[in-house]
């Protein structure tokens, strides 16, 4: 990538200002620092410019300028991502969509909404809530993260067990292609014409273009909701309960597991009513018709008790329900009570492998001399081990990263995936060979070439960086980028 001279930089700044307006371009290094990382602060990179467009035409003009200057560019939402996916390449342009945050249209009868990418996820549910509707994908960061960012990562959340992830709720997108052309992929109807480009675009981590308008489905709020907390003296019992519930033919709206360490942290911070001495708890939510709800809840209670739950209780009021969910949703923040820092992992395994993999996770982290808290989407096998550490202690961060790589390998070995909802980004690009062959990656690369032939749109993400990857088979170890930079080493 070219390094810009100061005078050239000034010229480009002026040109960008003519596109997006004064007050919508940053180029001062102090201001750019805000945009040097996302929620995963291991990786940092400074852009040359951050711009704040307010229309697809703005985005298109900025992208065309970037192409002309051969500058890399990347879209950015709220920066809550956890894989370094929205980091700039060294230099180039960060295109922040935060000023494109409107709900453009709501069609309640057809249950769709058209929104801009910078709209905060939860704000859509606020907007349509008074009419009895909501937007289903509910990542834990939904108070801050944007729908555009959710598109890039195909974000999930607790309720995706029943309702699916972001891709299941997106019908169409207006996209500024990596060459600046504005194109619609899909639309407002449930089927479109030709290949499912909208489906391919969602989850492409900003490498296929920049969405500027998004058509999403909104759902009718369920008539009734029931939330159950099951408390266990052994985490294996909680894992068994997940399988027992599935075996009874039930698909709850959500089924979340919270382990002992996490319960301690949550109770210290928020006092949500989880028993402190429990080894694990399952938070299970049923929703749907009011009639028949009690019958299903009885099945859940029975399945938990058969699996050894020492206590199963149902939230009696909405306030009680909210308190239980507060415990779950604020778990990440609560780790601050028990550790100066933590790093969240994201892996997926077949549900039936939960007991084995949780044991392995604990062994791996213990062998690193660290502690781990688990709070995750047990119903769909999406693990989030949170490794606690102290960044001031030399070498601890490196041990966290190494343990994370080991955990990902275990997920791959049991037939799982290295990411359920956080994406590959920079963090896991070099782990891709754990689950994909050279041929698999080559096909993905061809697909990328169809959308982004110049490679200027969010370079350096998803694909393993070392050329040698073609010589290594799947599930073979290769050093992580951080290791190569000397920031980490394997034990």
């Amino acid at each position, binding site marked *: 990538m070219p390094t810009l001279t100061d005078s050239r930089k000034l010229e480009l700044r002026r040109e960008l200002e003519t596109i997006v307006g004064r007050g919508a371009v940053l180029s001062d290094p102090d201001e750019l620092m805000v945009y040097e990382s996302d929620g995963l602060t291991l990786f940092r990179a400074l852009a040359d410019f951050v711009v704040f467009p307010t229309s697809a035409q703005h985005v298109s003009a900025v992208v065309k300028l970037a192409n002309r200057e051969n500058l890399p560019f990347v879209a950015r939402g709220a920066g809550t991502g956890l894989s370094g996916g929205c980091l700039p390449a060294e230099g180039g342009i960060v295109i922040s969509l935060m000023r494109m945050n409107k709900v453009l249209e709501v069609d309640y009868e*057809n*249950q769709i909404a058209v929104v801009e990418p910078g709209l905060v996820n939860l704000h859509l549910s606020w907007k349509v809530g008074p009419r009895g509707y909501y937007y289903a994908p509910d990542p834990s960061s939904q108070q801050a993260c944007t729908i555009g960012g959710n598109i890039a990562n195909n974000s999930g959340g607790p309720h995706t067990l029943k309702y699916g992830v972001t891709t299941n709720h997106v019908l169409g997108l207006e996209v500024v292609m990596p060459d600046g052309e504005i194109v619609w992929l899909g639309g407002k109807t449930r089927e479109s*014409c030709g*290949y*499912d480009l909208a489906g391919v675009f969602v989850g492409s981590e900003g490498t296929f273009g920049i969405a500027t308008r998004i058509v999403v489905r909104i759902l009718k709020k369920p008539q009734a909701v029931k939330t159950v907390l099951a408390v266990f003296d052994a985490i294996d019992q909680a894992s068994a309960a997940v399988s027992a519930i*599935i075996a009874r033919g039930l698909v709850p709206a959500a089924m979340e597991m919270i382990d002992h360490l996490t319960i301690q942290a949550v109770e210290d911070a928020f006092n949500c009513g989880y028993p402190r001495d429990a080894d694990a708890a399952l938070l299970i939510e049923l929703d749907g*018709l009011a009639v028949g709800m009690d019958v*299903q809840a009885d099945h859940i209670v029975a399945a938990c008790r058969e699996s050894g739950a020492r206590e199963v209780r149902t939230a009696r009021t909405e306030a009680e329900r909210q308190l239980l969910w507060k415990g779950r949703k604020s778990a990440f923040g609560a780790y601050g009570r028990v550790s100066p820092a933590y790093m969240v992992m994201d892996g*997926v395994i077949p549900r039936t492998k939960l007991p084995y993999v949780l044991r392995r996770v604990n062994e791996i982290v213990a062998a690193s001399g660290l502690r781990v808290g688990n709070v995750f989407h047990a119903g769909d096998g999406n693990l989030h081990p949170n490794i606690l550490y102290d960044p001031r202690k030399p070498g601890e961060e490196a041990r966290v990263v190494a343990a994370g790589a080991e955990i990902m390998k275990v997920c791959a070995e049991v037939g*799982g995936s290295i990411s359920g909802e956080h994406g590959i980004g920079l963090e896991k690009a070099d782990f891709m060979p754990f689950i994909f062959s050279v041929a698999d990656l080559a096909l993905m690369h061809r697909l990328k070439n169809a959308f982004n032939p110049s490679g200027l749109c969010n370079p350096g993400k998803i694909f393993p960086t070392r050329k040698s990857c073609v010589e290594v088979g799947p599930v073979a170890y290769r050093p992580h980028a951080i290791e190569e930079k000397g920031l980490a080493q394997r034990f």
Partner: protein
Amino acid sequence: MPDALLEKLRAAVGPANVLIGIELSPYVVEGRTPEAAVFPGSIEEVAAVMAMACEVGRSVTPWGGGTAASVGMPTAGAGLILGLRRMARLLDHEPGDLTATVEAGMTVEAFQTALRSRGQWLSLDPADGDRASVGGVIATNAYGPRRHLYGSARDLLIGVTVVTADGSVVKGGGKVVKNVAGYDLPKLFIGSYGTLGVIVEATVKLRPLAEHEELVCVRFDRLKDAGAAVKAIASSDLIPNAVELLDGAAVGGAGLAAGAPGPPAAALVVGFDGVREQVDWQRAELARLTGPLGSRDVRQLDAAAWPRLGPAARGAFATPAAVMTLVVLPTQVADIMEQGAGIARGRGLQSAWAAHAGVGVMRAALGSDPAPTDPGAIAAVLTDWREIVHAGGGHANLESAPLAVKSQVPVWDDPGAAGRIMERIKAQLDPRNILNPGRFVAGI
């Protein structure tokens, strides 16, 4: 076909698994006879066949149950049929994971039977499940009435193994229900009509079988009233698994016309599942909602009516002259049905309309009974239908029609600017253009 190629194919898959000459009659599509039909028994054999075809530039048509063989434009070259019928095993079903992996040639019905024995099912109910293969259903994005609640292949396919045009074996997705590692390749192959690769294995999400399921038919004297009932259901607390809107002709096509004083103008067929009391409550609630909207009667249907719903429009005619699929916003369905039937009548043709109304997907059949109809009139009606759908922001494609009609009416919509991206994808994945060339959208 050169003898050398034939010998190589026979060596790759076994002589009994290469058909030529008169044996090819089941694989003649719209008057075109392929050069040979090849039936590999493993992924490696599929890869070998593709590599050979690629080397000599022979076109290849992947073939499951053949139920959608005539959809699309005839391919540019007759080439090879690559049949998946020998690859029909259930490879893995772990009930606790609610997932299963199958070979692409397994029929939907055989798959469902195996799943049902363990209390689960794949929540896709395309027509002709006894013949349609899982791979074919994915490649054509086929679905049935239960799509209303349970979605389509894009909501269920979590992993796919594909042999690409050059004979590479490629996996996308995985075996877990939630997975964002890498690009979502399963989405790419859904509805791609065999133009990007040969689907050889699929991993899907499953659902537990409901304790109870019921189909309820509400008949109306006016289509408009049935349309209002669709809207009433959408804004109610009901959670139906199917909402089918049939016009009078399609009511007959689905075999639901009997037992009424005169044929109804329309029927709404609604499915419910769940525990017994949920189904009972919903049936009563449906009656309560539709009563004031002019429903004539509300009755339970036998489960045997389910598979007749998808093909209801086509079923109205002994031999339909053409069938079109039209996709609109759900609220537009009843209006488009009325307008579309009027357009056909204006040209002296009969039509039958059936819709997965809650998702806005309609099928319309044009009748040629009693006399054969002039292709020009059929083409004119289809063109008008497409126009009214486009005016409302929807899409239409021709599901079946004689070649004389296909030569006048494009089978597929023009995908606009997105078509260029599709062409680039095709060029990247199949640079020699050997997979179903010319069959799909934008000349792909």
